[in-house]
């Protein structure tokens, strides 16, 4: 009954509160919203004017302030550094966990999303750059290897009959030249550097929720 008859300004306030508190643990947010909804229903009965409704909302204060008041006691039990072993494990597992048969990276993602030290934006960055972490570079390495091998084979053929270990010849052949090789090296650089950069970013941004 109270919900259906809710004043549009009150409904809007509740919506803003839910939005502001989206990073709170679900139970806390639901509890807070139930209290505020009850407050609004009590203070703004059906038929209340917009001006009166606004003054009730003004007395409540900005939703962000309420969410902020809810946060300090819910922060990590260690009052100082928000980076507990779980945050550090996530920071290490995201770039490197892929080497543990990929399971480590998945564990890193779970730790990342279950932590309250990061915003949703940081969690998305941590997950999407790069899925699988540095281990994702293995397929790229194979690709690069294939590109190099192709060239070696061609060179070995041109060295009519002479038995020269092709690997040696490739090394002496100098730097990358084909577009394939350059692309492969750029990809390797991105796939190795990006997860490390993201890990550094996560280590620095932990606990600094906006």
């Amino acid at each position, binding site marked *: *009954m*109270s919900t259906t008859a809710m004043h549009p300004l009150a409904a809007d306030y509740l919506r803003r509160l839910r939005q502001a508190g989206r990073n709170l643990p679900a139970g*806390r947010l639901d*509890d*807070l919203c*139930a*209290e*505020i*909804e*009850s*407050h609004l*229903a*009590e*203070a703004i*009965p059906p038929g209340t004017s917009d001006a009166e409704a606004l003054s009730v909302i003004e*007395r*409540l*204060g*900005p*939703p962000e*302030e*309420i969410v*902020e*008041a*809810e946060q300090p*006691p819910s922060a990590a039990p260690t009052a100082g550094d928000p980076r507990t072993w779980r945050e550090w494990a996530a920071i290490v597992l995201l770039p490197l966990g892929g080497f543990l048969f990929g399971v480590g990276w998945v564990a890193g993602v779970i730790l990342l999303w279950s932590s309250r030290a990061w915003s949703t934006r940081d969690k998305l960055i941590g997950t999407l750059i790069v899925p699988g972490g540095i281990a994702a570079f293995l397929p790229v390495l194979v690709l690069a290897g294939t590109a190099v091998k192709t060239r070696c084979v061609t060179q070995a053929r041109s060295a009519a009959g002479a038995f020269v270990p092709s690997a040696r010849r490739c090394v002496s052949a100098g730097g990358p030249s084909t577009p394939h090789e350059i692309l492969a090296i750029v990809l390797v650089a991105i796939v190795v550097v990006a997860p490390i950069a993201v890990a550094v970013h996560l280590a620095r941004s932990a606990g600094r929720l906006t």
Partner: protein
Amino acid sequence: MAPRDSTISQLRRGVLEFCVLALLRDGERYSFDLVRALGDVDGLVTSEGTLYPLLGRLRREGLVESMWRESTAGPPRRYYTITPDGDATLRTFAAQWTRFRDSVDSLLAQGATA
């Protein structure tokens, strides 16, 4: 007043939980009633909404208990009661507060007459 605003708001925040306990000493009250009672006291609360997180903390600390109840007219209400723990906490604070207030008052009075 303005430059030391944060000190005042910290003081306020520090004593508010005891004010909630004091309001519950004589019996149960529902949250809206509690919040309005505190909001109506001059200079104590700037944003009424921030009292709800405070009530949640007092619940988790076991100083108060609460129960939702249907109301005959209007929305369901959450009724709060003080626990024995809350009562003991309030008594301890009240004694310390009196000493603290008297000391500060006497120093302020000395400063005014000096």
